């Protein structure tokens, strides 16, 4: 996911270079750089969690396959047509662009929101890694109903994993970035292997034989993705899958966070490189991980709605924990994959969260802030409920950062056409643009009120939310720039 998941970026893009200037021609990167980066970044530890959660959400074969194809396509198109065109024209980081539009104070708030969201995301990745360490070391793992730290062994296990990751993020970020490049091709194949092993198990358990695509589809539809929903989990239709998949990385494409990456691209069309991440990490890996868990459900005899309801009442639904699933299917190599997938993606996430927080308190060293961030993340990781609610959290994460992307988009393309100024905060030399801040906060208030009021599910609210943020920002900018006479001041 992830990434939903922030991961290793080109060394030159990871900070310290061109933070407050456009990327010069000599520093631009070729297409292959982006293919590798996106493929590695979106094959993360959390993919092993999202796949099983799809099964709990009762996805059917047609819904999950078509939903993932369409949702990922929409995500790629968002990168190509929304993020990349601005990135390759302005060639600035998101932070610098937001500072120019909305002022320094908005960047501080954005950093705070981003940093907290990164902490939760990295926490989920540490939880995933800890489930594999737990299989190895033997401490008790949480169940599907565990929300809080349930056992001292679990707390110590997560603390061990988290502290190691925190120190490495603070002191050895570049080593992990390089190591994750080494691990990426191997990890992708192990993810594929999860699916192949699960398929064999289904064939053995069901007695089905595959002679062609029709047989395979029959098995997928009747045994793997049966559409049986487990009570207590969100109930997914094809629309849920499309929107969840599209918006799983909303902060990065529509939210414009990847301006910081794609500003290095020589051509605008390099945005299509995101397809490597989407169709490997968010298609193949999600399907593979979901097949492993689907088999656990199938082998436990949960093959009808009645079976599942009865098991839910008895509390005997299998636990969707990546560690044990990987151990059963691929042995030690599977466990190593889960640990590395969680570790290599949690590290840059903690590192970036540290950078975001450090921008708020620049007097404290990055090492100290990153260590503090790592410890905070470790405490979050001790609560398995956060990871078990990953589908909702990923949607919330995108929603929180999405309005800022809408503001950047409108400022770049629409305001000049309306006779208003882009980068108004820079032109007025102000550190606060209430039109941008108001658009962000009001959009969040309205969207969250709609979700909490039960009017719309969190997976769908971001789309109308984007248009709301856009309209609010246009209206706010009109008043801010014209009515207050600031337009002339900017000239």
């Amino acid at each position, binding site marked *: 996911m992830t990434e939903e998941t922030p991961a290793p970026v080109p060394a030159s893009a990871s900070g310290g270079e061109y933070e407050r200037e456009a990327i010069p021609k000599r520093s631009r990167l070729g297409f292959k750089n982006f293919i590798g980066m996106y493929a590695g970044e979106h094959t993360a530890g959390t993919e092993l969690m999202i796949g099983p959660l799809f099964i709990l959400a009762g996805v059917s074969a047609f819904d999950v396959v078509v939903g993932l194809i369409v949702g990922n396509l929409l995500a790629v198109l968002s990168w190509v047509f929304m993020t990349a065109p601005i990135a390759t024209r302005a060639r600035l980081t998101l932070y610098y662009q937001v500072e120019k539009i909305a002022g320094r104070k908005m960047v501080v708030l954005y950093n705070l929101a981003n940093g907290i969201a990164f902490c939760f995301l990295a926490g989920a990745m540490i939880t995933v890694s800890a489930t594999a360490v737990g299989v190895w070391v033997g401490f008790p793992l949480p169940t599907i109903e565990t929300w809080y730290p349930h056992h001292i062994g679990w707390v110590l296990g997560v603390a061990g994993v988290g502290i190691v990751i925190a120190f490495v993020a603070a002191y050895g970020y570049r080593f992990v970035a390089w190591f994750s490049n*080494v691990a990426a091709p191997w990890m992708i194949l*192990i993810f594929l*292997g999860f699916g192949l*092993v699960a398929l*064999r198990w289904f064939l053995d358990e069901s007695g089905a034989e595959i002679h062609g695509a029709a047989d395979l589809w029959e098995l997928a539809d009747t045994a793997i993705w049966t559409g049986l929903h487990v009570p207590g989990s969100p109930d997914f239709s094809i629309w849920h899958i499309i929107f969840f998949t599209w918006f799983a990385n909303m902060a990065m494409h529509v939210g414009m966070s990847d301006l910081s990456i794609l500003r290095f691209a020589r051509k605008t069309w390099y945005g299509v490189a995101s397809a490597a991440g989407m169709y490997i990490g968010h298609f193949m890996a999600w399907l593979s991980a979901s097949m492993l868990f689907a088999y656990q459900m199938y082998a436990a005899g949960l093959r009808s709605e009645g079976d599942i309801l009865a098991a839910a009442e008895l509390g005997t639904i299998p636990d969707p924990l990546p560690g044990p699933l990987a151990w059963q299917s*691929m*042995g030690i*190599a599977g466990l190593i994959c889960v640990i590395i997938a969680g570790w290599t993606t949690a590290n840059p996430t903690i590192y970036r969260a540290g950078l975001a927080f450090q921008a708020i308190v620049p007097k404290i060293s990055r090492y100290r802030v990153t260590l503090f961030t790592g410890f905070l993340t470790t405490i979050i990781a001790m609560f398995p409920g956060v990871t078990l609610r990953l589908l909702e959290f990923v949607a919330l994460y995108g929603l929180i950062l999405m309005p800022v992307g809408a503001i950047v988009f409108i400022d770049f393309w629409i305001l000049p056409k309306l006779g208003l100024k882009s980068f108004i905060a820079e032109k007025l030399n102000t550190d606060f643009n209430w039109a941008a801040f108001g658009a962000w906060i009001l959009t969040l208030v309205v969207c969250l009120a709609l979700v909490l009021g039960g009017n719309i599910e969190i997976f769908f609210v971001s789309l109308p939310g984007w248009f709301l943020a856009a309209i609010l920002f246009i209206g706010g900018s009109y008043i801010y720039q014209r009515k207050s006479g600031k337009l002339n001041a900017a000239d």
Partner: protein
Amino acid sequence: MPPIDQNAGTRKYSLMKTRRVLQTISVLALLCVAIAPAIYMSNRISLDAMKWWLLGATIVWFLVTPFWMQQKREE
């Protein structure tokens, strides 16, 4: 004027050759990671055998790949 290293060309050739060998081993290990589950899926080896193949290939991959990937990075 610095002394001319007459063996520099030979050393560079030898380094390139070593790197090619290491890359070939990495590719073989990766092929093994890809093929073992596929063979298991077609019911030709046991689950345990597949796990051992995967572990072996994993060890080889992580022992060998860092050398040539690091070399490339340093270059």
